[in-house]
């Protein structure tokens, strides 16, 4: 009796487990026995689901949702699923999918920083991108998306930091006179490091919690990007790495830190600058506490609206090597092991044709020169010309294409943060960072 009960229990368990595993197979196998193999294939083709990973709240999500029905109409039977996740979640998800081989998303929207880390799992697009398309890529876009001659991503948008300032302060006659008296030349929108420091010094009024500008000092990637802006202006390039050679002994890197640190030490920036990055800086600017700032161009429209139009924009400032900025392109990529690769590539082409939609979305930025030029003629989009001018400068470029960038960025972020806090000199910080980065890439 006991034996029978035991056997029955075992049987129930085994059956329930096998039912779980073969549920899918049973539905198609038993229910549609008369269906021919051809019909089944047709059904499979028609009922495909294209899953796209996007950053939640980004233009990527907005445009993917806006264009979803149009693509579905063009490809009947195809369902587009837009999967929005936070910024860091994109890296984590794709990293896990590629490592495990369990591909859930067909397409992902990626920051340029991640391309090299995921190279082995991304489908090269060289055969699908024409020369005409490449000719319309914005400067640095092709370079950023290409690794070992493989074009890994279709441009979505590119951005750079530009100079934004309070128009009324710069046009005020009293300010102009006082500035000329103090510095011996006319008050104008700064184009060099020296002018930038003079203007920052002039407008700073600490007692009233008003500052000439802001500097990035938080221990994160935003600070690294800002420091690389200044390093490129000081003549650094290629940035940080050349192959396996770490370039941090180039004086331009230490000069960039000193430039940032001087603003902090002199008090031209808010006292809590060591915890500030782009989000905090735009808050200060929109609160009316800054005369100018270097920040991502996409903040311009909202700043102008918040400050009742009292905001103007200019290209990034220049150092001894001229205007320079580190760019922040985003790409759409197809995962190599996606079961819907052909459809995913069609989707990328479809989205490239609709690149202008990104201009209509939240950030007012895009990835094609023609789109930038077209939209820069519209009032309120003055930042686009500033970006074009900044990107066009020979000193502007991408961060290095290396799968170790996330780890390297943490090392650099620590180094800049500690140097700005005065715990190390700029040279010591760069020397220490160089050794640590060599340890990472060896």
């Amino acid at each position: 009796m006991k034996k029978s009960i035991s056997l029955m229990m075992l049987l129930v368990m085994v059956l329930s487990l096998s039912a779980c595993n073969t549920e899918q197979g049973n539905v198609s196998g038993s229910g549609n026995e008369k269906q021919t193999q051809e019909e089944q294939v047709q059904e499979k083709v028609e009922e495909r689901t294209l899953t796209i990973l996007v950053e939640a709240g980004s233009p990527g999500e907005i445009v993917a949702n806006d264009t979803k029905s149009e693509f579905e109409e063009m490809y009947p039977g195809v369902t587009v699923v837009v999967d929005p996740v936070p910024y860091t979640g994109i890296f984590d998800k794709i990293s896990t999918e590629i490592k495990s081989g369990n591909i859930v998303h067909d397409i992902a929207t990626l920051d340029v920083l991640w391309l090299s880390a995921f190279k082995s799992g991304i489908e090269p697009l060289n055969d699908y991108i024409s020369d005409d398309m490449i000719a319309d890529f914005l400067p640095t876009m092709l370079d950023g998306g290409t690794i070992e001659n493989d074009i890994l991503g279709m441009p979505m948008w590119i951005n750079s930091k530009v100079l934004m300032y309070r128009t009324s302060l710069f046009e005020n006659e009293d300010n102009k006179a006082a500035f000329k008296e103090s510095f011996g030349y006319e008050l104008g929108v700064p184009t060099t490091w020296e002018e930038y420091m003079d203007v920052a010094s002039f407008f700073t009024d600490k007692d009233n919690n008003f500052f000439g500008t802001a500097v990035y000092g938080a221990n994160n990637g935003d600070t690294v990007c800002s420091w690389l802006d200044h390093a490129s202006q000081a003549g650094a390039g290629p940035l940080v790495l050349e192959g396996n050679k770490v370039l941090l002994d180039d004086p331009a890197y230490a000069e960039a830190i000193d430039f940032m640190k001087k603003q902090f030490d002199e008090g031209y920036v808010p006292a809590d600058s060591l915890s500030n990055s782009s989000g905090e800086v735009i808050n200060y600017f929109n609160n009316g506490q800054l005369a100018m700032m270097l920040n991502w161009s996409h903040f311009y429209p909202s700043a102008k609206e918040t400050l009742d139009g009292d905001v103007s924009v200019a290209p990034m400032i220049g150092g001894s090597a001229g205007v320079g900025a580190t760019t922040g392109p985003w790409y759409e990529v197809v995962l190599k092991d996606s079961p819907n690769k052909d459809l995913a590539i069609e989707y990328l082409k479809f989205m490239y044709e609709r690149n202008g939609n990104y201009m209509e979305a939240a950030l007012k930025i895009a990835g094609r020169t023609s789109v930038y030029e077209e939209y820069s003629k519209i009032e309120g989009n003055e930042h686009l010309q500033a970006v074009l001018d900044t990107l066009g400068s020979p000193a502007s470029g991408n961060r290095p294409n290396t799968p170790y960038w996330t780890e390297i960025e943490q090392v650099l972020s620590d180094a800049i943060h500690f140097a700005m806090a005065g715990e190390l000199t700029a040279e010591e910080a760069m020397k220490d960072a160089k050794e640590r980065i060599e340890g990472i890439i060896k």
Partner: protein
Amino acid sequence: MRIVSRKTLLLFFLPGAIFMAMFLIYPIFKMAIDSFYKFDVYTNEKLFVGLDNYIKAFTDGSFLIPLKNTFIYVFFAVSIETIIGMALALILVNEFRGSKLIRSLLLSPLMIAPIIAGLTWRLMFNSNFGIINQILRNVGILKKATDTITWLADKELALVAAIIADVWLTVPFMMLVFLAGLQSIDKGILEAAKIDGVNFFENLFYIKFPAIKQIILTAISIRLIDAARTFDIIYVMVDEQVTVISTVIYKTLVKYNRTGYASAMALIFIIFFVVFTLVFLRNMWRPSKGGS
């Protein structure tokens, strides 16, 4: 005569055992193997490196600094939580008007997810608009409106901020456990002690604490393990300044793609906790030693 045979018992045990083997034993075994390899960041091919990952863990700041931070975090967070939790439990064990309402309100942090608590505290500690600095200004610790403490931009202060958030989140748990223990003490003993004229501290150290010693140790051991594996609060609140073991393992594996090194760190962490738990539990629960 047994009601259920040994075989039937084994069958009941089997699903759980299979589950444990698949999702606990196998991953740990796989992790142990991975810890002896280095993985190519492009191809994921592995190269046997022997004990290199372990040697690196015990000689490199990338593991030792988070380890030190973890010890500091655990020591201060659990100590403070125990003291405040016990103090609140001693107050609330005496029924007074409104005590039930206060007890319910004090329990509210328990209903908040650690990740939400971390994000909220991050805003509260914001050096520009955070309420903590504003309170310090209101009470005169910060003299001028422009004075500020950059809580989240300094390694030491960031760790303090994270400990404060953890204490806020977990004191209710300690209070609840201690309160349950105190309420279970035989009232006859307490009344007898009162008649004998024991003072407050004698009552505390010679009657109440010995009576709930096992409960205190259980609560502390749960919190020690819980605090040591804390991830959410640290990651969302102070990750830019402070790394602890759990966050560094996560970043090394997911962000830096160093599977071998992350596996070695994780295995060291697991072994440490298994040993700790065994020693702690062995000393705690020995029926021969008596206790409540």
